[in-house]
């Protein structure tokens, strides 16, 4: 992948992707829409304080070298340009955050919240492994065959270091910055490697809610999370080989601020909240008892916890993307099997 010559006129270097060639071979090649991407651009290079004036603000960005077009997975646009109903006055955009720290315990009764173990979420492949993981890392740190109510929470909202704009009691800023600008993700694409993950569960929007007022005299947190049925990932929306995408719902996050900052124990977003979702994954049956896939794609016979027991494991990334705003986050999972 060389860089394109950017010394003269702007040129377009176009290629068919592997999927495009396949569709052409099938007689099913029909382009009907386009999208724009900017994956090479680092907007941190935009210098609003350039001493030579505004004409120079984006000088470095415009000099960004661009790679040639290629045909495989990375031909895809990973992020992409967007518009929000013609609204040109947005100053803040939501971000997505994975809730993995034990300092943020969100799970309502009836659910287990899954926490990170060494920066990764564990997914047990069989009940024997469940038993061992319960001993080694505790029930809140994995999801397994006997521990199916464990979920990983993902929040979206405006989260800034200076808490500007702040979360408010009454959620006025949520109304202004999120709802008023249509920045609420009601659905998320969850893309998984289908060699390892065959099912995805998310919240049932109709029977879940996420509200709360922690202020003095307030009603306290009122969280209900009910998982919808398991969805089998189908269309590949991310363009990575072996990946397919399932859609899960997002629940409006209506947790208000309070004078004691108690709400901060229940949210990773320090400004106006947008949505919260929860995902639970179902591993492939191929991973239950056979070491074959682990040998091919992961590692086998590893002493993960220094207790003398050995495990096989495969590390995989799950991609979660908000369907309205395009906000995205990558969630690392480790599928583990006790030998």
């Amino acid at each position, binding site marked *: 992948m060389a860089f394109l010559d950017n010394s003269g006129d*702007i040129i377009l270097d176009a290629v068919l992707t592997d999927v495009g060639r396949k569709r052409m071979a099938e007689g099913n090649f029909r382009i009907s829409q386009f999208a724009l991407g900017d994956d090479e651009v680092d907007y941190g290079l935009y210098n609003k304080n350039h001493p030579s004036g505004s004409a120079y603000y984006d000088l470095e960005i415009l000099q960004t070298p661009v790679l040639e077009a290629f045909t495989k997975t990375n031909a895809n646009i990973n992020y992409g340009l967007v518009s929000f109903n013609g609204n040109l006055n947005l100053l*803040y955009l939501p971000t997505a955050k994975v809730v993995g720290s034990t300092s943020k315990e969100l799970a309502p009764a009836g659910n287990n919240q899954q926490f990170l173990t060494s920066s990764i979420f564990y997914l047990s492949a069989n009940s024997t492994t469940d038993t061992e993981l319960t001993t080694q890392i505790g029930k809140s740190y994995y999801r397994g065959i006997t521990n199916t109510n464990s979920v990983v929470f993902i929040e979206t909202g405006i989260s800034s270091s200076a808490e500007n704009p702040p979360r408010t009691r009454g959620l006025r800023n949520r109304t202004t910055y999120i709802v008023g600008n249509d920045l609420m993700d009601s659905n998320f694409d969850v*893309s998984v490697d289908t060699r390892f993950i065959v099912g995805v569960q998310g919240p049932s929007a109709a029977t879940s809610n996420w509200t709360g007022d922690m202020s003095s005299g307030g009603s306290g947190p009122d969280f209900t999370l009910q998982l919808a049925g398991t969805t089998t990932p189908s269309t590949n929306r991310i363009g990575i080989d072996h990946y397919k995408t399932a859609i899960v719902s997002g629940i409006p996050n209506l947790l208000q601020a309070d004078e004691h900052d108690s709400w901060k124990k229940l949210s990773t977003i320090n400004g106006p909240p947008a949505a919260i979702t929860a995902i639970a994954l179902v591993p492939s049956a191929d991973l239950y008892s056979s070491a074959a896939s682990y040998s091919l794609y992961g590692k086998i016979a590893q002493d993960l916890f220094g207790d003398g027991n050995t495990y096989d494991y495969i590390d995989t990334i799950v991609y979660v993307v908000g369907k309205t705003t395009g906000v995205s986050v990558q969630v690392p999972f480790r599928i583990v099997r006790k030998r």
Partner: protein
Amino acid sequence: MPNQYQPFNLNTDITSTKTLLHEALPLTGTIYKFGTGSYIDENIKNFSHGQFQSVYDYPYLSSSANHIFDLAVGYDETSVLSSSTSIQNSKKINMYNQMTQVLLGYSKDTGEVVQKFESDLNINDDNRYMREVFFVNFSRLLTKDQIKKGSFSMKVATGSWADATTAGAIKTLTDNLATDTGGTAAVLGGEYGLLYTSSASDTLADGLIFYQAGIAVLTASLFQNDSTTDTLQEDFSDQLGDLSQNQKTVREALTGSTISASCNALRHRIADISFNNTTEINSNIYFCRVPWNRYNYSTNPTYVSGAQIQVKSLASDTPIAYVTTVGMYNSAGELLATAKLSEPLRKDPTNELTLRVRLDY
């Protein structure tokens, strides 16, 4: 993975074009050992079946070698050279029949008899037969879709074998009467034109060039001393070489040598070849129209810093994004083609973009 797509208007945003590209191809005689060098050269591949000879631009056992053309010899079964005593007689007849069958088809009178090559543009008048011919079959790698009409030129040494390259003994065959609008005839094998020597003033052509098939057919009469007749009844003073015996007339070569040996002799007499090939490119051009109020924001993780858009200080500031990639999708959201700009292109509400993406087939 983008989550916002802009649909094409099938009536106004997509158009198809056809473009003809031409490349000039000079083939110098040094590639295939014109005049000098061993007949058994690494660039030359002979086959055990002995029906033709392949010429490469590099030792053919190398993966870097490109096949450039084949040589073959043939004569019609009604030729005076056709005899059971002729070496590879049936193979030479078969070669002639195969080529004329594919390029010209069968006789209008007797369906089981193939047409014969003629040195004019009318194969139905049954005259000016070329019964004894050499074939030069160019690789599709060179000719692509077809040879450009009027561009073909071949220099052939026709002097005696000992001094084939004497000034005046090199004839230049060209198809200079052929154009896109005339000077050719259409037959089963595509269009063909006539090859004349630059010195020729008569109406007899010395060969044919089939443009789409990429095949040149040279009459053996080209090497005869007396060009007043189109048969090989005359005795020839000029000679062609052979692996074991250089002193052969063209008649002796065609009857008393193998096809491979005759191809060797011909190969040493072809000085230069040049022509323009033609590649027909069909293109779909997609006009990706980006209105002023679309694609002014980005989901690039660096677009925000602390939730604030980096290119704005105030909400009222103009949003800006920079385009580097155009993804072309089907209705299912599958990426079928991708195009990269050579440098980032600024997109803000003060401009509209039309990005022209051309896909060639």
